[in-house]
């Protein structure tokens, strides 16, 4: 059991708004860790601090450390672009590149960084689409527009795109929010499968999803980490009263 990430005293701001307060937590590798909490608690900010996407926003600031494989990604000599290549990210609303075909979408990460070898690209595209459980549905026409797929398929396409660059980590920001229940169920099965090879961190506002799909769950409230532990324990017998109130639906 080792830790992929060790977050130490992470703070984040949007201008003067203190969005994350002193977050410290260790994230296990090859497991699914869910971050739950009411709207505005900072969970999206937290996940975006992990791949250094938060700092791109206007007036965004970060302090603290995030150790990835033991190295602080916020150190002065670290290139955020390299960090992001090691982490795949999937967003709330599926966002395949609109003017590209399915094939080009999946290959985008590689092509945009210079890979040209057609054979290699073919292999990677097929492998990624298989991992994202989308290959069988699209293999007959990879030149179709990415935007012509259904919501659930589009999201899996985005996952394939992220997987194509062979990251070590998959970060998912409410990936099932825009999907219907069946697509959501398929996605959750996929998430559990991904955890065999990747470290998965997922933000969700759906507690049941965290309960179903995650090995570990972290509860954030108003920017603070209230409780963090194995999902089973947190949902059966939470230690913190605030956690108890939140997960039994007494506020939210």
């Amino acid at each position, binding site marked *: 059991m080792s830790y992929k990430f060790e977050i130490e005293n992470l703070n984040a701001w949007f201008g003067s708004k203190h969005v994350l307060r002193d977050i410290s937590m260790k994230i296990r590798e090859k497991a699914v860790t869910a971050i739950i909490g009411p709207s505005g608690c900072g969970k999206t900010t937290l996940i975006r601090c992990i791949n250094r996407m938060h700092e791109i926003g206007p007036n965004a600031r970060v302090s603290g450390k995030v150790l990835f494989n033991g190295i602080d990604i916020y150190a002065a000599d670290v290139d955020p672009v390299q960090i992001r290549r090691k982490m795949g990210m999937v967003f709330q609303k599926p966002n395949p590149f609109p003017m590209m075909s399915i094939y080009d979408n999946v290959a985008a990460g590689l092509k945009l960084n210079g890979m040209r070898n057609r054979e290699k690209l073919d292999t990677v595209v097929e492998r990624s689409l298989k991992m994202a459980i989308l290959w069988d549905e699209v293999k007959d026409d990879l030149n179709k527009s990415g935007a012509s797929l259904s919501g659930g398929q589009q999201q899996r396409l985005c996952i394939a795109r992220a997987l194509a660059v062979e990251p070590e980590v998959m970060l998912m920001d409410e990936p099932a929010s825009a999907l219907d229940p069946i697509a959501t169920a398929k996605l959750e099965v996929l998430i559990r499968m991904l955890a065999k090879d990747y470290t998965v961190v997922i933000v969700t506002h759906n507690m049941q999803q965290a*309960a179903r799909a995650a090995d570990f769950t972290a509860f954030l409230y108003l920017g603070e980490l209230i409780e963090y532990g194995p999902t089973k324990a947190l949902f059966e*017998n939470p230690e913190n009263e605030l956690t108890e109130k939140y997960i*039994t*639906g007494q506020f939210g």
Partner: protein
Amino acid sequence: MSRLIDTGLEQLASMVFRMGEMAYKTVSLSLESYIEGINALAQVQDLSETLIVMADEAEDKAFELIARFQPVASDLRILKSYMKVIYDFERYGRYALDVSQVQRASGGLEQCERWINESIREMSEKVLNMVRTSIASLKSHNVELAKTLSETENQVDDMYFKYLDRLVEKAPATNKCTISSVLVARYLERIADHATYVGESIIYLATGEKVTLR
């Protein structure tokens, strides 16, 4: 903030409490009938059967709440505890029925030696109290009250084994009293056990801790 599941939980709670009251009545009636030598088998049978029906309904309710509301944390613990308690209350009724059947088959305590009478009366009183306590502490989710059941259970156990020893020692005149009183004492001891199980469920419900009160 009131939640959708709250109505269901209240309904379930009242079903369980009603079961408890009924179980107490059943046990009390059957013990009294054995001690005084009155035949109350038909009544006790009725009550016991009602308890089984109530248990079914209450269990159904609990399952409905699980299926519909996906409860977690304290809600989930309440449901788990209630389901166990439902079984324990049903057991109260079952043992009460057993006692009544013994009474019908071999008569009551009125034909037995005085010392047997006293021992069994003492045990019955204690055990009936335990049943009373188990129901009361469930109603109020009272952990302290539930913990007292541990002490009382020890006492009942003590009384049970001491009684057996004395029986061996004193070997009364007729077999009837020996056998019937041993059976009833055994049932009393089992009722006491179930009362402690109820206590354990109450502690789990309130604190999430799994303890053994025996």
